[in-house]
């Protein structure tokens, strides 16, 4: 299967002629009376947007509420008993008595540690994996060697293996390497390889004009130099998009980390959230604290997204298979 069903970036897709014609048609349509169809369409769209956005608002509203007030006034659309106790519990800024009085479990949760672990894992995986896959993609795109196409097909084929299948054997491998409950153990399986990344970058390297490369080679530059000083800088846009997607995947990963990490030394945010959720005190879950924790866990991705929304949104498409 050479046309892998994976979303592949194409750089900023402008609303082309097709979009323009759709816009024109709306103008002609708007001329005849009240556009009920369009009003209905917008109404449906707004409902979907509300469903999409409401849970985010609800996280914030609950995180800023007092846990005890939540139980008496659960239906208020605004924060009830406005306070920052939820966030204070998450970051361990409350003493045990206050925490329990406010409906927390009183158990210490080392959130800074989990945040740091998540940042360490996601950052290392993103940098090393992107670099390792860029090198491989360059070899598959621009270097001449025997067996190139065959080896590339093997890499492509590995896209077909579902993650679940490699989890158990990989756990045993990591265990035999003595890396259970370490950050390295969490990172290792995805540290060097993402067949998708190789496939994706190869497409871009293929499109870098060959003349540029030839000119540098004639000037006496080596292929290694061409890779670092020409190919990588010229592909900075797709590299950045890929890095963002990789960071997001690593940050949100749960199943594998759950298998490998047991104690605070390797616990990442997603796993910590699960533990935090399971530590419900006898009075019922600490919803205010839980929502504060989920917001803290989601915030870095939402901020990254706010900064690069245009790039990410426009990168979603299927250009790779056309």
């Amino acid at each position, binding site marked *: 299967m050479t046309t892998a069903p994976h979303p592949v970036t194409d750089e900023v897709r402008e*609303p082309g002629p097709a979009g323009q014609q759709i816009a024109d048609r709306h103008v002609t349509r708007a001329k005849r009376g009240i556009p009920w169809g369009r009003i209905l369409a917008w109404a449906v769209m707004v409902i979907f947007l509300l469903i999409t956005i409401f849970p985010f608002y609800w996280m914030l509203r609950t995180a800023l509420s007092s846990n005890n007030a939540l139980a008496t006034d659960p239906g208020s659309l605004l924060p009830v008993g406005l306070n920052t106790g939820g966030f204070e519990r998450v970051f361990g800024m409350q003493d045990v008595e206050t925490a329990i009085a406010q409906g927390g479990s009183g158990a210490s949760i080392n959130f800074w540690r989990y945040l740091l672990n998540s940042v360490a894992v996601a950052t290392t995986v993103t940098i090393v994996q992107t670099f390792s896959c860029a090198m491989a993609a360059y070899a598959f795109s621009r270097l001449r060697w025997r067996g190139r196409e065959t080896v590339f097909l093997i890499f492509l084929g590995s896209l077909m293996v579902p993650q679940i299948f490699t989890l158990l054997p990989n756990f045993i491998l990591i265990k035999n390497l003595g890396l259970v409950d370490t950050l390295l153990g969490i990172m290792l399986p995805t540290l060097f390889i993402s067949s998708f990344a190789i496939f994706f970058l190869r497409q871009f390297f293929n499109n870098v004009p060959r003349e540029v490369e030839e000119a540098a080679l004639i000037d006496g530059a080596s292929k290694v130099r061409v890779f670092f000083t020409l190919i990588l800088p010229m592909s900075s846009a797709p590299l950045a998009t890929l890095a963002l997607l990789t960071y997001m995947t690593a940050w949100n990963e749960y199943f594998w980390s759950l298998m490998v990490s047991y104690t605070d030394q390797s616990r990442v945010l997603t796993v910590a959230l699960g533990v935090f959720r399971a530590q419900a005190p006898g009075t019922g879950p600490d919803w205010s604290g839980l929502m504060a924790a989920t917001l803290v866990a*989601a915030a870095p991705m939402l901020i990254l997204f706010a900064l690069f929304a245009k790039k990410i949104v426009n990168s979603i498409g299927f250009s790779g298979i056309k």
Partner: protein
Amino acid sequence: MTTATTSTRSAPPRRRKKDDTKLALLFIAPATVGLLAFLVWPLLTGIYYSFTEYTTLTPPQWVGFENYQAMFADPVFWNSLKVTVLYVLINIGVQTVVALVIAVLMQRLTQSTLLRSLVLAPYLVSNVVAAIVFLWILDTQLGIFNIFLQWIGFDPIAFWASETWVIPTVALVNVWRHMGYTALLLFAGLQAIPGHLYEAARTEGAGEITLFRRITLPLLRPILALVLIMTIIGSFQVFDTISVTTQGGPADASRVLQMYIYQNAFAEYQFGYASALSVALLVILMVVTFTQYWLTNAGKSDLD
């Protein structure tokens, strides 16, 4: 020598260039080590473990097909299969329809990047975050959705604790997280449909429904097929949401195949049996992929 590159071919009188084999091996070395150690090797050992009794404390003991025989006789396995398929049907059914509606609405209404960003927002948070938020929103006593239900005159529903509701609930929570992303994939496909087709049909007097049925749907079919293959494979691997919320309960009502595999390996330490279950999931996924690929001719596009 394999010089099957495109643009060297366009310059016919080329010098014989030197072979880069050594450099290429250096460049693919890290990725190849990763591929062999963490994808190829586990694929082989995973199949091997499925034929063994393995508790990780002692070395694996070859037992032939015993794990598979046990699996076929295991009612919990068949139940988990049933639950997983039910989950996939609801999840994919609702998600595909909703995503298609959002994509068509976006195509018709606006090219706004802001709107597309908002639609994508749930995809950025982890499954774990989505699960905990909906655990709260759908809480039987205090959840805002149940308060809303009571306000409009219904009884509150124990979404997470009822055997009937738990799988639809998990499926819909995951629809919430993935519908925007799926919609944007479909939207990208819609952008490729030439606008003049709609224009021509409209001058013939075709209405919106006809346009959708006669132009949008047939021309979107190849993209839709690929999106379906991707999302179904993802859907079969549901785990995070259930692990955080119900752990498979109430009773076995949400014990999907992945949950059962995880519990066999990490609660029962039956790695051999868990591996056999994984092989079953792998086989199911392969059958699903090939059937779909064959049924829909996913590679072909009506626009070509």
